[in-house]
């Protein structure tokens, strides 16, 4: 602490040269720090967070909870009511889906784990587009996990701590993802850029000339690369930009989640190999018309859209040529309309949906 002195001692040319030398040494040290490999710089940042800044980071979670207490009660109530209505409407569907999956021998559907977190968005030089997240490894957040809201994609986790994390949103220069149009006709890479009016947007590039997504069409994640699961809404096409080299087009995408909507976010569970085959579009009510085609393209053999592997052993396929029907069966076939079996790979008798359902052992009802 001897450096804190009201007035300089040892000033003069000699003292200045010594100060310059010391300052140069610290500057070189800072330069070395700046040019360290990313792994070491991340390790140093994590070390600082876990030691000197630990009390502050620990406070961050409590602050998020306190901020939640002062949330708009009316808005929260409306969201809860909407969610309840949605769940009631989906209950029967979920039950039917479970029964169908059990009937077909599919494993239980792999669900996504969402971790709710508060996000504090940075501004200013060097902090624009960064998010301080109030959840970390202990809450189940994985490295490079996707950050979403009810509207769509926000960004991804960049650096992971024990109880907190640092993320980047779509405005950050490091952000980039592979996207596609909802119909699967146009694929490309979306990166942040300044739009025609100077507003921050995403640029979809490169897009071949023969595809032309109309304005307003929905852009979702394509799942290529494995970083983001497939089907998360990203934004809508806002117009075409200047062509690059004459062979490609650039389209501006207006993201669905504005920076003002990034206060409360959901972080997807840690990416696994299976996630790239899955389709998250249904969670946002988006139907991908190209889902099956692209699943086949990406994974080779046809799999179910949600890629759950059948657990039942492979069943024998029906023979290409049906056995010759007996005379009694032939008469019944003439009376009944032709029925297309919706599940030809399943063994068993074809069921006529119009035929009356009678428990076994009871006579069939007859019309009076």
């Amino acid at each position, binding site marked *: 602490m001897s450096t804190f002195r009201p007035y300089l001692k040892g000033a003069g040319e000699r003292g200045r040269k010594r100060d310059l030398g010391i300052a140069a040494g610290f500057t070189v040290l800072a330069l070395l720090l700046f040019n360290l490999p990313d792994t070491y710089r991340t390790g140093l940042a994590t070390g600082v967070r876990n030691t000197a800044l630990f009390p502050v980071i620990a406070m*961050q979670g409590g602050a998020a909870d306190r*901020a939640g207490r002062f949330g708009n009660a009316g808005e929260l109530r409306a969201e809860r009511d909407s969610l309840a209505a949605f769940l009631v409407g989906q209950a029967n569907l979920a039950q039917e889906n479970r029964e169908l999956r059990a009937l077909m021998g599919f494993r239980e559907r792999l669900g996504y784990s969402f971790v709710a977190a508060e996000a504090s968005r940075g501004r*200013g030089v060097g902090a624009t587009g960064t998010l301080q997240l109030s959840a970390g490894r202990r809450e189940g957040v994985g490295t490079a996990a996707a950050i979403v809201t009810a509207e769509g994609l926000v960004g991804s986790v960049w650096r992971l701590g024990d109880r907190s994390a640092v993320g980047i949103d779509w405005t950050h220069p490091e952000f980039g993802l592979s996207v596609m149009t909802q119909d699967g006709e146009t694929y490309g890479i979306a990166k942040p850029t300044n739009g025609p009016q100077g507003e921050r947007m995403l640029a979809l590039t490169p897009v071949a000339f023969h595809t032309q997504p109309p304005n307003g069409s929905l852009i979702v994640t394509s799942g290529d690369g494995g970083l983001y699961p497939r089907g998360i809404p990203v934004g809508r096409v806002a117009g075409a930009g200047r062509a690059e080299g004459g062979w490609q087009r650039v389209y501006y995408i207006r993201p669905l989640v504005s920076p003002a909507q990034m206060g409360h976010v959901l972080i997807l569970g840690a990416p696994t190999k299976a996630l790239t085959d899955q389709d998250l579009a249904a969670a946002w009510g988006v139907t991908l018309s190209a889902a099956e085609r692209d699943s086949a393209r990406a994974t080779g053999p046809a799999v179910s859209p949600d890629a759950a592997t059948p657990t039942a052993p492979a069943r024998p396929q029906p023979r290409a040529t049906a056995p010759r029907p007996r005379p009694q069966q032939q008469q019944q076939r003439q009376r009944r309309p032709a029925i297309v079996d919706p599940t030809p790979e399943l063994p068993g008798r074809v069921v006529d949906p119009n035929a009356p359902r009678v428990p076994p052992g009871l006579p069939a009802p007859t019309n009076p």
Partner: protein
Amino acid sequence: MTEGTRWQFVGLIAGLVILHFVLRVGLGLGFYVPDLLTVALLLAARRMRAGAAAGLGVLFGVLDGGVNPFTMGASALVLAVLGYLASRSREVLAGDSPVLLVTFLALGKYLFDLFLWGVLSSRALAGPASVLFTLSPLAALYAAAAGLAAVTVYRALV
């Protein structure tokens, strides 16, 4: 800024640094809180040797990099240079008037943003340059006002 004992001044600087992290990170107020870290460095550098001020800048930069990993190293470099320049500025900007203090702090904060933008742009991490003309001047004035308030309270207490 020659009032108070050495330890009282150390308390002021440490208090500003702690407030910076508690308000910005701990309470999640973020950009709504002025950059008290830069203010603390600028104030401390006025009473320190230039070499030590550069060292303090590196220390503050490492702490800042803990919060924002993208600026780890870059902010240390910029704050080291800024600390050195702030310490040497005594030869040019003499006196303790509030106007001089506000000018010194605002200029220092703006230079910090400018240098940081320049360093980060070498890695395409700086973001749009428009920040330097919109947010940075406001942030500089905000930091200067906060620094003036802190010094006024300090002078009233010691």
